[in-house]
């Protein structure tokens, strides 16, 4: 084998190795519509869904975004935000977390731009406990969502003549980290069992680029940032007791194991 062939072959091997490594980290996805993302799967027989939507407001003078999560079959509107433009120098935002409004007010005018920036401390959205039969033991399973989010709105007027044709270029960016957790453990005299794990529902900074026109034309929206949905592991085990109090694992099972799905827009990339 000559040197050129060796280099060529090692290139193929390297490329294959690189592809294998990266493809195991994330499932890449190229969204046809970057403003409506949805990833859907199942966990313990129940739907596991994450949706990230961005739409023009009814007045066509704003943008509204929503992040919906269906974890263990329970629907949660994790975060909703809306931006509505009143004039070139006045805009309002509304911000909801888990259905509760935490902010409603005007954007601030800073250096010619309209801005809002806010963040919430991490929160926990607990679900009702449920029982899960695992082999010989019924587990009391504690589940819910841990979540932290930030919202940043930035609008810069792009004035032109005539004024009614003017537009605002802006971004509405949400940094979201949400993890679904699942914990259950029970112990009887001769057997013990557990179920546990985490599903990273959303991890990343996702948003929308918007051009809002004052002539009532619908805003143009585009995707922004990078986000990974639904990677994680949930496992279950059953142990029975042996002589002298030692435990013997008789069941060990992955209920959920997925590298997730990654979306990237603009300059962002899914490659770690």
């Amino acid at each position: 084998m000559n040197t050129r062939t060796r280099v060529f072959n090692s290139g193929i091997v390297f490329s294959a190795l690189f592809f294998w490594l990266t493809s195991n980290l994330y499932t890449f996805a190229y969204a046809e519509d970057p403003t409506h993302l949805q990833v859907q799967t199942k966990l313990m027989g129940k739907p596991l869904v994450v949706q990230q939507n961005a739409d023009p407001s009814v007045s066509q003078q704003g943008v509204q975004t929503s992040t919906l999560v269906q974890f263990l079959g329970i629907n949660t509107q994790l975060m909703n935000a809306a931006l509505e433009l009143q004039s070139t120098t006045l805009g309002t935002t509304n911000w909801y977390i888990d259905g509760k409004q935490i902010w409603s007010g005007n954007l601030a005018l800073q250096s010619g731009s309209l801005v809002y920036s806010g963040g919430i401390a991490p929160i926990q959205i607990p679900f009702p406990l449920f029982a899960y039969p695992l082999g010989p033991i019924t587990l009391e399973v504690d589940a819910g969502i841990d979540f932290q989010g930030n919202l940043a709105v930035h609008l810069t007027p792009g004035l032109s003549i005539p004024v009614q044709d003017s537009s605002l270029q802006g971004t509405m960016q949400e940094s979201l980290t949400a993890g679904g957790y699942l914990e259950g453990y029970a112990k009887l005299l001769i057997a013990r069992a557990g179920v546990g794990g985490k599903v990273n529902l959303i991890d990343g900074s996702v948003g929308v680029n918007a051009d809002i026109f004052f002539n009532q034309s619908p805003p143009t929206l585009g995707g922004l940032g990078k986000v990974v949905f639904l990677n994680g592991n949930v496992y279950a085990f059953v142990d029975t007791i042996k002589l002298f109090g030692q435990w013997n694992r008789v069941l060990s099972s992955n209920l959920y194991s997925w590298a997730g799905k990654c979306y990237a827009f603009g300059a962002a990339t899914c490659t770690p």
Partner: protein
Amino acid sequence: MHSVTRVSLGLSTLLSALGLFHLFHKPAQSLSHKVKVEKVSASEIKSESYSFDRHIKAVLSDHAHGDRNFADIRYRGIFKIDRLDAERARITFTLDHQASAAIPFEVTIHEWTLTELKSGATKNEQDEESLNILKDFAALYAFRSQEDTSGKYDARFSKQGYIIIKEKIRYKSTLAAAVQILKSKHQIQLDSTQHTLIKAMGKETSIVRASKSSVMKTTSEYQITQLGAARPRLISTAPVVENSLISTTMALQASHSDQFIPWKMLEPKLNQIATLPAMDRLSLFHDLVNTTKKDATAFQELKGWLSSQSSNIEIRTFAIGVLATQGSEAAQHALLEWYQQFPESRSTILNSFTTTTAPITDEVHSFLSDLIDQKGSDPDPAAAATLTLGSALQNYNRSSDISKLQNLYQSAQNTSEQTLYLDAMGNSGNPEFLDTIKVGLAANDEMVRENAVLALRLMKDQLTHDLVEQAWTDSSLKVKSAALQVIQYQGSAGNYQALLAQCISQTPELKSTCGQLL
């Protein structure tokens, strides 16, 4: 003695010893199967029911109110199968209970036809577990009809669909566990059906006998014993039907795990918090909440650590989340101290009181009331406190707060104030505000009507449904759009099929939203 004789004597001694060993050494594993047989008439199997009566001491966890109660509960559950004809069966599931404490759950009665089961129709999203069980019924009906035509399966079983059904359901989880145990410990290849399991264990039993006029109905109980150990051990008794019933109504277990990660293992991670990726930071948050809820010492340690780090606003925000979620009286008191100490974190602290599911303490309640009363001098904190007070009503029902928000709405000076108070009512999800919300729905101002509709987002009763439909008839597109947002929040698009269909055909501006909801 001749050498050949010596050899044969030796061999026979060895064989005898082996025989004796086999005689006295039984296999380490066995499966016992107790069968109770009773005779019933064939006509009875047209309508079959399985019921159980169970008395348990339960721990009731109510996250909405953030506490746990103990209760003695008596369940009575019935699965009833009415065979309509060869292809159709109606399966009804009812559950009744008596409990020593008031339990906030509803007794539900569901009814499915076989066709619905096969198509995966569900009456209640939360009830998927029992639906899965009922799907087993459907599968077994299908199974039975296949066996009838092929004739390959044991004829004794093929005549007795109901009996198979009953046993399949009762022992589904037990058998799955048994098969798993046997596979892993004894390398026995088994199917997960009851019949092959029994056969593989050499315990094949004539479970059912049938004649034209009668069947022998059986009640079975399996015990797996002597799995590689000297003494018999009971592995499983839990019938899956009861488990499913429990899981579809509320979570119960007489014991609860008190596991937590000790503070000394969390502290090193906490020291690296600034460099942790967002998801790892969230995991640390989760563990800290869990540990400080269960270990008072850890809570004190955390407070000490935080006081040394409080100049870092990012860490402080993280800590505010831990304290608000932990939710104890001491944690809420600490947050109020920080409110005074760190003006730049005030809105974060108020938002944390809004988003937490822990009930606010009397101290926090007074603090919020004072802020609201100071709205003239400090409008922003007053507005945030109003939203927080509304949200707090999700976790307790304080009539004075309901009256306060109602009065504030009535005395509102402008549209902005009216919408704020409607937003606060919306945060509560409390139907006691419906009368005030109705007033908002009739307002002249479009923005007030829009916010009045949005205030229905966390309410789910019939009156709310009617008000959403009423809002849809409003001439304003913004109000209509708000109605759609409420439907989305409630996750109840199925209850508004006609409205959504009308929206798609008659409201082009909202067609896409309605299409997604539908």
